[in-house]
């Protein structure tokens, strides 16, 4: 919005209704270049914007803000001073952003936007900014991260060739220079929200989850999951005097739960991961297909481990990518096709590793094996009924050789009995099979009351 009566009117209106989102719109950089440049040129000072001195610009903004109706709605001199800094930084940013498509100077855009977010932080710390204005921090934080990524992208395109010849060049560090800097700034905003001791209804703590979600996205991109865990720890410690999680907007709840779930997942804490991801799934907007797909990418491996359940065709139907990713494996698990399972895992290894689900899915082999052994057990049929009217009992003494034949099926290699016994012992240890191995007679004696717990036989 151009610097002029319209902007100052909007400022006053936002103030009157204490509408933080409305206020935040007045510092949005998400505008077409033409509009940005007309904002930059709209600053009303003698001699025009081209020869504008910083002090003159600030004085003009101050006049504007002071003339707005916010004055009668109780804005203080100190606050106005703080907002002058914010709008001044915004004005400078519009000048850079208006031309950034041509100049690609995303680093400049990032640095200038950092000035703006620092002005905001300063406003809360020293200029008595009120908590209802925190959506301004959202807009500032969100775009700081976007500009940081653009700047890093640009740096790596421009500098790679030259820098690669330097001896102490560390590509990882260089690649995310601005994004790492951005993480530090966002962390300050996090502290700013967390440390607010005002009563809850006028606390910056209402900004916590939005900022944490920005931090999560940033840390995930930096592969710094440890730092994300830190945020969770700090949050848990302060949970006592915070607004109830479910009173936050659902977009924030879902984004938070997704990241919390994935963090648990990466620590192999699948029960917790499933809990968080299920909540994210249930609360997610029904039309947010890509996000639902991402949630399922981790929820499906979770289910495999915690409840040994697989996604139905109905669940996967709207997600061709997930079908491609998981269906082959699921088919093999269901049928107990051990060798094919190994092949399917190998086939999509790169994709699984990239999504960090390989190791989890690999554990699905146990379930495939369980299902194969179970098939052998069922194929064994029933013991002859001793007395008429007795309930038929399945054959529970199964030669190891039968299991060996089943395990070797489909593969070129023959698996010897020792190895099969080892696999069986493992399955018994993991509670997937109930029974014992009689080595001298080379048979497996399975439990008469549920040889494969939880599967109906």
């Amino acid at each position, binding site marked *: 919005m151009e610097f002029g009566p319209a902007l100052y009117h909007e400022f006053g209106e936002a103030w009157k209704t204490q509408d933080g989102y409305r206020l935040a719109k007045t510092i949005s950089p998400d505008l077409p270049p033409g509009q940005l440049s007309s904002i930059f040129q709209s600053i009303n000072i003698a001699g025009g914007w081209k020869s504008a001195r910083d002090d003159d610009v600030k004085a003009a903004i101050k006049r504007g803000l002071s003339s707005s109706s916010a004055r009668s709605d109780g804005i203080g001199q100190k606050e106005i001073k703080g907002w002058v800094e914010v709008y001044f930084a915004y004005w400078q940013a519009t000048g850079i952003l208006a031309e950034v498509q041509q100049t690609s100077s995303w680093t400049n855009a990032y640095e200038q936007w950092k000035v703006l977010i620092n002005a905001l932080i300063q406003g809360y710390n020293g200029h008595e900014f009120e908590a209802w204005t925190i959506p301004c921090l959202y807009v500032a934080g*969100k775009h700081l991260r976007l500009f940081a990524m653009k700047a890093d992208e640009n740096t790596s395109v421009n500098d790679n060739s030259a820098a690669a010849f330097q*001896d102490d060049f*560390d*590509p*990882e*560090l260089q690649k995310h220079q601005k994004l790492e800097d951005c993480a530090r700034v966002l962390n300050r905003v996090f502290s700013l929200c967390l440390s607010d001791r005002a009563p809850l209804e006028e606390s910056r703590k209402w900004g916590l989850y939005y900022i944490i979600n920005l931090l999560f*996205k940033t840390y*995930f*991109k930096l*592969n710094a999951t440890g730092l994300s865990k830190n945020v969770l720890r700090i949050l848990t410690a302060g949970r006592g005097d915070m607004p109830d999680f479910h009173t936050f*907007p*659902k*977009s*924030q709840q879902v*984004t938070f739960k*997704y*990241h919390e779930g994935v963090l648990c997942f990466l620590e192999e804490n699948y029960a917790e991961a499933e809990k968080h991801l299920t909540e994210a*799934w*249930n*609360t*997610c*907007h*029904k*039309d*947010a297909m*890509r*996000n639902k797909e*991402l949630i399922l990418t981790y929820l499906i491996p979770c*289910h*495999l481990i915690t*409840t*040994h*359940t*697989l*996604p*139905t065709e*109905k*669940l996967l139907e709207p997600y061709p990518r997930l079908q491609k990713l998981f269906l082959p494996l699921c088919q093999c698990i*269901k*049928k*107990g*096709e051990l060798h094919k399972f190994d092949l399917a895992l190998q086939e999509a290894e790169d994709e699984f*590793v*990239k*999504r*960090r689900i390989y190791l989890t899915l690999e554990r699905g082999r146990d379930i495939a094996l369980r*299902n194969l052994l179970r*098939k*052998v057990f*069922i*194929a*064994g049929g029933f013991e002859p009924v001793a007395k008429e009217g007795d309930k038929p009992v399945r054959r529970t003494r199964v*030669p190891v050789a*039968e299991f060996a*034949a*089943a395990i070797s*099926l*489909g593969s070129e290699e023959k698996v010897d009995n020792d190895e099969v016994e080892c696999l069986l012992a493992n399955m018994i240890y993991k509670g997937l099979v109930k029974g014992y191995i009689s080595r001298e007679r080379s048979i497996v004696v399975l439990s008469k009351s549920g040889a494969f717990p939880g*599967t*109906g036989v």
Partner: protein
Amino acid sequence: MATSKAPSADPKSSSDLPAEQPQQQKQQTLEEDDEFEDFPVDDWQADDTEATQNQQPQHLWEESWDDDDTTDDFSNQLKEELKKVEASKNKR
């Protein structure tokens, strides 16, 4: 995360494996499009949640084993294989 650094005594040695290094890094970092997307709206009604869409969540997950289908190729192969084991045992 381990970043391989060339030994300072011999700066040239880093150029020996230029093709390998970037590939390793590629595997460690997530794809661009892997990021959780911003929702177009901030909040929504319970009616618009996934949970309300699926009144029967039990239809989304199924047991991992398959009892109905014992006539597929693999099951038949397995039966053949088990018969062979049985036969060889009886011979002895």
